């Protein structure tokens, strides 16, 4: 199949891109890396009348340190670049660990960091990981800009708070606190296929080796990323013993996720995987926190 005709714009600045979005509204679609959008165009599952291609907007391609020990990533930064960037490895080890697991090398050559977030596929690694890391997203429109935390950005299946005239331009990753540990685990039919169930974890220990903060975000078990707040609360203030970890993983898997059934896995199987993965990921994350 081939895409239906569309009007094509390839702006070179954000200002210009925003003007096109303001003009065409819901008729326009933003083209970032295109690794999810172009398949949908090829199959004519999507037939936008206007495409606004960001690939020439050079101001959106960057990885920068921020002064607080965190990172700023331009929305168009290629996944391949994030994967190989030493600053990302140092300041956002969870992102560094996840990057090679995203799709295939050829997809990461074109796919972008921000594109994956704006697409909001509930099985996307970057969606869950950015939420686990408490990332904040800078959205711009002609009317101005706003910062939205990951917890509020994703609102459902392939749906975010982005208005049709708004563009995700930047992602801010906060600095990792001392004594933090992280983990990302997922189950796929084959390496790099879409995830059946997965979880991203970030934990911080206090000086008594008790859990000070915990974030536990699941992918592929709901309409969007699932932030298991109750399970995280069960751990905060506790010593993360195997029993405490097991109880939190069970809480998340039985009460907080809402997996569906499809050709790849039943809801029941996904729930089982979520529980096992959460237990393993929490164990790994707390081990790393103790070591660091």
């Amino acid at each position, binding site marked *: 199949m081939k895409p239906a005709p569309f009007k*094509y714009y390839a702006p070179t600045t954000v200002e210009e891109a925003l003007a096109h979005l303001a003009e065409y509204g819901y008729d326009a679609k933003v083209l970032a890396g295109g*690794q999810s959008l*172009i398949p949908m165009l090829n199959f004519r599952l999507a037939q936008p009348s206007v495409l606004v291609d960001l690939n020439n907007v050079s101001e959106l391609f960057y990885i920068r340190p921020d002064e607080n020990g965190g990172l700023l990533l331009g929305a168009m930064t290629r996944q391949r670049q994030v994967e190989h960037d030493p600053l990302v490895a140092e300041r956002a080890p969870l992102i560094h660990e996840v990057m090679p697991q995203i799709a295939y090398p050829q*997809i990461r050559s074109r796919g972008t960091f921000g594109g994956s977030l704006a697409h909001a596929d509930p099985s996307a690694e970057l969606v869950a990981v950015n939420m686990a890391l408490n990332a904040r997203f800078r959205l711009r429109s002609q009317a101005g800009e706003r910062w939205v935390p990951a917890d509020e950005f994703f609102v459902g299946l392939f749906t975010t708070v982005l208005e049709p005239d708004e563009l995700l331009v930047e992602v801010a990753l906060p600095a990792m606190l001392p004594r933090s540990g992280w983990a990302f685990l997922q189950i796929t039919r084959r390496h790099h296929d879409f995830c059946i169930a997965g979880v991203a974890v970030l934990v911080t220990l206090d000086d008594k080796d008790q859990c000070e903060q915990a974030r536990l975000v699941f992918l592929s078990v709901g309409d969007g990323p699932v932030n298991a707040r109750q399970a995280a609360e069960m751990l905060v203030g506790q010593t993360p013993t195997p029993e405490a970890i097991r109880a939190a993983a069970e809480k998340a898997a039985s009460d907080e996720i809402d997996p569906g059934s499809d050709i790849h896995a039943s809801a029941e199987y996904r729930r089982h995987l979520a529980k096992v993965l959460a237990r393993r990921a929490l164990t790994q994350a707390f081990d790393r926190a103790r070591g660091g």
Partner: protein
Amino acid sequence: MSDLFTVAVTVNGTQYERTVEPRLLLSDFLRHELGLTGTHVGCEHGVCGACTVLFDGVPARSCLMFAVQANGHEILTVEGLGTPENLHPLQEAFWEAHGAQCGFCTPGFLMTLVPFLEENPNPTEEEIREAISGNLCRCTGYQHIVDAVTLAAEKVRT
């Protein structure tokens, strides 16, 4: 009918200029506009890897790009790799280790593996399998392909 755009692109060292619709996929541009039919089209949704080319030196799916996006860029397709008289070491190794069966997927494998071997001249079997995870061979000849890559790595090293 959408507007037409001029695409000036370098493919395998040769400059081309064509006027195309923006919806024309890069894979179709290479095949139908430039006559470079070595780039194969399998699934057209980014799963099979048969259309892999080097875009500014990195492997990319040409079915998931528009020809207009190649304006001002450089592409290497399988036609630019070697000639029948003077095969690329990877092509030679595919031949010797029976890495090509029906041959449909082969150009995509080659274009994925050329940069991989440049970055990693001494790969383990697991790394090779990881590198070709985005390419499908429906003759299921993966073992021969892995053997071919190992052989190619040896050839390049010696």
